[in-house]
């Protein structure tokens, strides 16, 4: 007796499922247990959440980020599971265990879901395709997403039971389906929401409609004859939907109540998945090409199924495909409307690459026994088909492994940081009683947070933040502010300028880019920890109160949050016991899933074979020519003077020095080593702390025929540098010569005279001030801050016009004045300005930021400007009824070196300055402040930073604007009555001022930042 083909197919399907599960264990398990996820985007965030629940299962308030936020803002199942696993294997391995479990469950889910619409063997192939899927690999090993995989696993396992309920009205199936949907919600509510639309609804539509053989309906009644079949099933589908929605609400009820009571006010944060992938090709690679890499070939086959009863699934797949293209087409924006700027659209591509898997399995099955195989054999020959299939398998395997290791050879995150020294520092001497900030840590900041009780005003979970300083700007994290450009730095600036507002005392910096901003904002470097992280501190910051204010949730919500999301998967698994003795029969009876073999004697006409081969060959030729042209253009891009210059600076910016040197025409025996040395000695803001934001060619002048060797050209290039202290522009001229290798930039060895003065001994002042320690209980008298005496000169509130981003001008307020340290000890100062309305209510508060010298020698005076541009609300002149200024300081021993002098020559609108290094060590970034006086009072301060470092004895010219800002007017004298502060009607010792055009005068101050000085 011949074996039943359907039994054989089912057995093959299960075998393939077993193979797929082994592959998942081998490929993903190995990577997960090697902790590859620490380089991903999201894994450490989920671990942080898991760490919270491990310590506080029933307390969803997390105080360590954003000055506190509710964890009820994110479905917690994955985090609770990590918390549970962490009790046995630690947090990181706990994540690996949960993720691996999710992948295994997902593999089973894909099999079960695929079995609904394709034969069991094809479902098995779908599981193998899942194991090798570039999309899953990217989601797990590049993005580090866990709730997405876990919830999808529950969803795909729930749908078959929903299918059975709709088809057979089996109540046990309904219970199981609803409980698995509840588990889906507990893992990620968005999957339930969108999954209902893109997975559940099409599947149920298939089961509602698939049994109706339209052609077989009795004539006369038309399609109404189908209603007795369709309506009961539709009714059951509706009931299932209603119960799913009920679960969606109940399981994460605190989430819904929170989102209603505390709606997200975050301005949209740009995400590359919403970009036009043709313009932003890197985004296209990450969010489209890589996820689709292993399955995109099967898209035509899937679309071909549109004509079959599987059309609802294909339609859903097509919609997901379109939504996943982000801003490449206008369709996603039109469909999603406002949600377009909130959602990350890569999840649609992810779902699409899962939804296509049954069709991948079906295609492979068809190649094996069906028409597709016969067609391909006719075109490619049997041998060619085998080779093609082998290549496809190799490509998929290599692709999956490559994608899974993408984070190793294409860095998305900084190198792993050993957080132990940071944790030790925070635990020591009650440092955790202050907040800290990390810079340049990437997502590793979450791992640090998971291991310390100290808190940070930053965080890595955008939906939860409520600080207006964060919600009003489109930056992802303060720690990576530079990646958000000027807006990002503005946001960071607010925190660094007014750190006392957030009890922010420490900054752990893994990126020297921020050093100048920290230094000139009044922070000082305490040193470098054992892990190479620079530690910065700000003086005079109050510690956090013993008890931080926190909101409370009603106890029933706390109980629900701690119990229901974990109970949901437990109940879902227990519900399978309902199948113990009476298993639910899964699909296949309604529709014919068998892949039919080609009719006997079927062949493709030879003429058609020839045509297809020609078309395929032509396509390959076009592809090869396209790739070749693109490569040629890339290789020959540097063949005009302007491109050479742009390429040169691009290489310098990305530190591809060897490539940059190839564009040099060395003169006077300039070797590569010497050229590198010359580059390295030109330190300062431009080369040490800046990033090129734009390269613009102003002008190219030729001499001689440009194509002839020996021709010469001069290129004037405008380099726009992006630094932590703002943007500045350099205009440079490069002389180029046409060589046999193409246009090259002429360069000579850098020669700088070194005057003998740098070898002369110069006395320095060092201060020995013992460190204070914060006392745990009470405040001992010895811990009282030692405050030096300061004296404020006259301060005025002014308004002026500042260019706005839209090209216009907006009026802004600022305070201008001078502060003198009249104490015998150096002072680290903080100057705070306050604006009040007519009712005495404070409407704006800010500190002096960089237009000031924060650390003052005894007897030293600094000018200052406090701008009210970084306050939460817009402040207009009419609102301000009174203004006050407060200055405070503590005795300091840091950053008191003064080695710069400045020569100035007044012009009509500019003061030409020449800054001289009078000391014996390099001045990395000089800071020049020009005070403009009207009569005896300081009217305004213009300041600038020197773009290049100054060697001892070296000098640098720097023009400074000598006019008041446009629309300048004085509003009022500022009240200066402050406790413990001397207030002077006139400055103690009038600053020496020099004459400018008209009746105006000016004075200058200069100080500097020295790299590595602690």
């Amino acid at each position, binding site marked *: 007796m011949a074996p039943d083909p359907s039994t054989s197919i089912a057995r093959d399907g299960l075998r393939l499922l077993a193979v797929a599960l082994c592959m998942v264990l081998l490929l993903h398990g190995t990577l997960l247990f090697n902790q590859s996820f620490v380089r991903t985007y999201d894994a450490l965030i989920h671990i942080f959440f898991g760490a919270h629940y491990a310590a506080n299962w029933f307390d969803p308030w997390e105080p360590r980020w954003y000055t506190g936020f509710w964890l009820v803002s994110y479905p917690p199942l994955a985090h609770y599971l990590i918390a549970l696993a962490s009790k046995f294997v630690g947090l990181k391995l706990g994540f690996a265990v949960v993720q691996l479990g999710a992948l295994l469950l997902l593999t089973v889910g894909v099999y079960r879901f695929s079995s609904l619409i394709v034969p069991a063997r094809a479902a098995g192939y779908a599981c193998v395709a899942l194991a090798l899927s570039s999309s899953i690999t990217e989601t797990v090993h590049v993005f580090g997403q866990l709730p997405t995989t876990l919830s999808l696993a529950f969803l795909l396992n729930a749908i078959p039971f929903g299918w059975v309920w709709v088809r057979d009205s089996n109540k046990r199936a309904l219970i199981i389906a609803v409980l698995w949907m509840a588990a889906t919600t507990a893992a990620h509510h968005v999957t339930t929401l969108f999954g209902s639309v893109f997975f559940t609804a099409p599947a149920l539509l298939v089961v509602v409609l698939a049994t109706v053989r339209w052609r077989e309906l009795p004539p006369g009644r038309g399609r109404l004859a189908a209603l007795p079949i369709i309506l009961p099933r539709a009714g059951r589908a509706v009931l299932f939907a209603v119960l799913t929605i009920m679960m969606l609400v109940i399981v994460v009820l605190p989430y819904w109540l929170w989102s209603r009571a505390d709606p997200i006010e975050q301005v949209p944060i740009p995400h590359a998945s919403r970009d036009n992938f043709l313009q932003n090709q890197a985004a296209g690679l990450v969010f489209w090409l890589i996820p689709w890499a292993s399955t995109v070939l099967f898209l035509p086959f899937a679309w071909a199924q549109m004509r079959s009863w599987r059309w609802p699934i294909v339609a859903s797949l097509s919609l997901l495909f379109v939504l996943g293209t982000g801003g490449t087409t206008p369709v996603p924006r039109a469909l999603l409307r406002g949600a377009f700027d909130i959602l990350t659209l890569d999840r649609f591509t992810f779902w699409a690459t899962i939804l296509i898997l049954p069709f991948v399995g079906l295609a492979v099955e068809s190649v094996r026994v069906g028409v597709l195989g016969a067609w391909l054999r006719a075109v490619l020959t049997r041998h060619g088909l085998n080779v093609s299939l082998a290549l496809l398998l190799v490509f998929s395997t290599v692709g999956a492994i490559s994608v899974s290791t993408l984070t190793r050879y294409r860095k998305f995150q900084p190198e792993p940081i050993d957080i132990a020294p940071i944790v030790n520092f925070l635990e020591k001497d009650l440092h955790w009683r202050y907040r800290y900030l990390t810079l340049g840590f990437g997502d590793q900041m979450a791992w640090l947070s998971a291991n310390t009780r100290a808190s940070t005003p930053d965080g890595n979970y955008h939906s939860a933040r409520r600080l207006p300083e964060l919600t009003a700007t489109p930056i992802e994290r303060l720690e990576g502010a530079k990646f958000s450009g000027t807006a990002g730095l503005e946001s960071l600036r607010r925190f660094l300028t007014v750190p006392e507002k957030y009890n922010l005392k420490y900054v752990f910096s893994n990126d020297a880019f921020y050093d100048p901003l920290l230094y000139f904002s009044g922070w000082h470097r305490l040193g470098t920890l054992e892990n190479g992280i620079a530690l910065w501190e700000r003086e005079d910051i109050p510690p956090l109160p013993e008890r931080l204010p926190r909101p409370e949730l009603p106890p029933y919500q706390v109980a629900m949050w701690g119990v229901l999301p974990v109970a949901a998967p437990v109940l879902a698994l227990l519900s399978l016991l309902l199948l113990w003795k009476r298993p639910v029969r899964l699909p296949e009876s309604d529709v014919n899933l068998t892949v039919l073999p080609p009719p006997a004697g079927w062949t493709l006409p030879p003429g058609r074979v020839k045509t297809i081969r020609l078309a395929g060959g032509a396509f390959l030729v076009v592809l090869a020519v396209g790739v070749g042209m693109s490569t040629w253009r890339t290789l020959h891009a540097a063949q005009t003077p302007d491109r050479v210059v742009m390429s040169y600076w691009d290489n310098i910016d990305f530190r591809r020095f060897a490539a940059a040197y190839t564009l040099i025409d060395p003169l006077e025996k300039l070797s590569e080593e010497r050229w590198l040395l010359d580059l390295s000695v030109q330190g300062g803001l431009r080369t040490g702390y800046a990033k090129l934001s734009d390269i613009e060619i102003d002008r190219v002048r030729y001499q001689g025929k440009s194509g002839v060797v020996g021709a010469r050209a001069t290129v004037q290039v405008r380099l726009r540098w992006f630094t932590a202290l703002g943007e500045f522009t350099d205009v440079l001229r490069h002389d180029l010569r046409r060589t046999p290798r193409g246009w090259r930039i002429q360069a000579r060895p850098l020669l700088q*005279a070194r005057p003998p003065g740098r070898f002369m001994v110069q006395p320095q002042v060092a201060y020995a001030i013992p460190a204070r320690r914060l006392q745990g209980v009470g405040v001992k008298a010895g811990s009282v801050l030692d405050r030096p005496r300061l004296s404020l000169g006259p301060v005025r509130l002014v308004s002026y016009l500042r260019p706005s981003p839209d090209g216009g001008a907006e009026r802004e307020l600022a305070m201008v004045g001078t502060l003198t340290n009249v*104490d*015998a000890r150096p002072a680290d100062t903080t100057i705070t300005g306050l604006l009040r309305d007519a009712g005495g209510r404070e409407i704006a508060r800010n500190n002096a930021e960089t237009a000031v010298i924060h650390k003052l020698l005894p007897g030293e005076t600094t000018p200052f400007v406090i701008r009210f541009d970084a306050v939460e609300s817009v402040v207009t002149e009419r609102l301000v009824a009174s203004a006050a200024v407060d200055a405070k300081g503590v*005795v300091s021993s840091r950053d008191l070196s*003064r080695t710069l*002098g400045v*020569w100035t020559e007044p012009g009509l609108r500019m003061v030409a300055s020449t800054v001289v290094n*009078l000391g014996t060590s390099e001045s990395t970034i000089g800071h020049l402040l020009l005070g403009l006086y009207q009569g005896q009072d300081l009217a305004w301060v213009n300041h600038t930073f020197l773009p290049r470092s100054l060697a001892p004895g070296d000098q640098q010219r720097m023009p400074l604007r000598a006019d008041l800002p446009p629309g300048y007017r004085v509003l009022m004298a500022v009240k200066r009555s402050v406790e413990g502060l001397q207030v002077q009607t006139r400055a103690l010792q009038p600053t*020496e001022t020099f004459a400018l055009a008209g009746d105006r005068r000016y004075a200058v101050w200069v100080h500097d930042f020295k790299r590595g000085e602690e």
Partner: protein
Amino acid sequence: MRTVSVLALSAILVLSACRTQPVEAPTPLVGPFQVQAREVSGKVLVKVLDSTRGSLPEGTVVTLELATPAGPITARTVVKNGGASLSLTYHRAGQLHYRVTAGQRSQRGMLRLEAGSAVRIHAESQPRAVRVVGGPRPLLVAQPVDRFGNVPVRPVRILTFLPDGTSTRREATPRHLLMWTPLRAGTGVGELKVSVTADATRRELVVTDLLPGAASSGVLEAPAQIAWADAQGGWRLDAENLRDRRGNEIVTGSAVTYIGLGPQDLRFMATVPAIDGEASLNVAPLRAGRYRFFLQAGSLQSARVGLTARPGLRRGSFRVKRQGRVIILGPLVTVHGALVDTGTGVTATVLSAEGRSLREDVIPVVDGRARYEIPVLPPKARFIRFALFGEGVTTPLFKDSR
């Protein structure tokens, strides 16, 4: 069956929540009673006596309740032989209100608890350093405490030692838990030491630094009044004898600002820290001419020192030679006969016929010569000006002036 179990469990839970509270026995009637309260060694002792025979029935529960900032503390006992004694440990000094309750009656009273002998003194002066001239007096804040942390309100003896060897003695009494008093700082710099004694049990030494005042006198000197603008030399400016009004050397680290007034509105400013009452500066002139320097520190503005800068290059140094598209400047020789240092930058400014600057380059001197290879220039370029040490020469770009 399952439904029955669930219903039964629910019923048990509901019924157990509705159980009745136990009924207490009626308390006997209590008549007037007397209360005697005192404090002994950190213990509050209360004796309750019946005013008339039988007014305190045997077995009556008597409760003592102390009202404390941390909430009430209670003790209970029962009446035996017509009376009851209660005690509670309490260490906080000050007023203590209590209530004694017996049956339906209660009486209130108040005890005053005194601090014990001081066993520890917290003392601190603020600020920790003051100027002896022009600064405020330091303030001593002390807090003697007994072994329970109470502050005894008894005079604290303060002994002050000034740097000149003199000492003063005075007394002050803590008020509002703190004793504070301004200290006399004297006129000499050094350390002000303060000894604080309370109840003759402990003493602590507080030290305040007495520092000089701001500079009010000093001189500015320049050993050499002539310098050459050749980037090699310059003037040395010495600020000496920087002292406060009482003749103390100003504190090391004090800011001293040098200000220079040069030719053609050229101005100079530099701030350096003073060390041991002195501050020196080496500054090279930018160009030849007459300069005046003075310094500012505290209330001091020194007399002006006149200095002269002479041209640094020997006459005829700006010799221009052309070799095709290369212009060679030099040899550049200083007035001392030496070649200008290799690496010194010569500013080459390309000018139009109207004198407008079209391009500026800095070319290094090599072996006393500066070599300028004429780049591709705008058509309007006519002249080039070379400048070094404030001197310069302008020459046509090309021999034929194009």
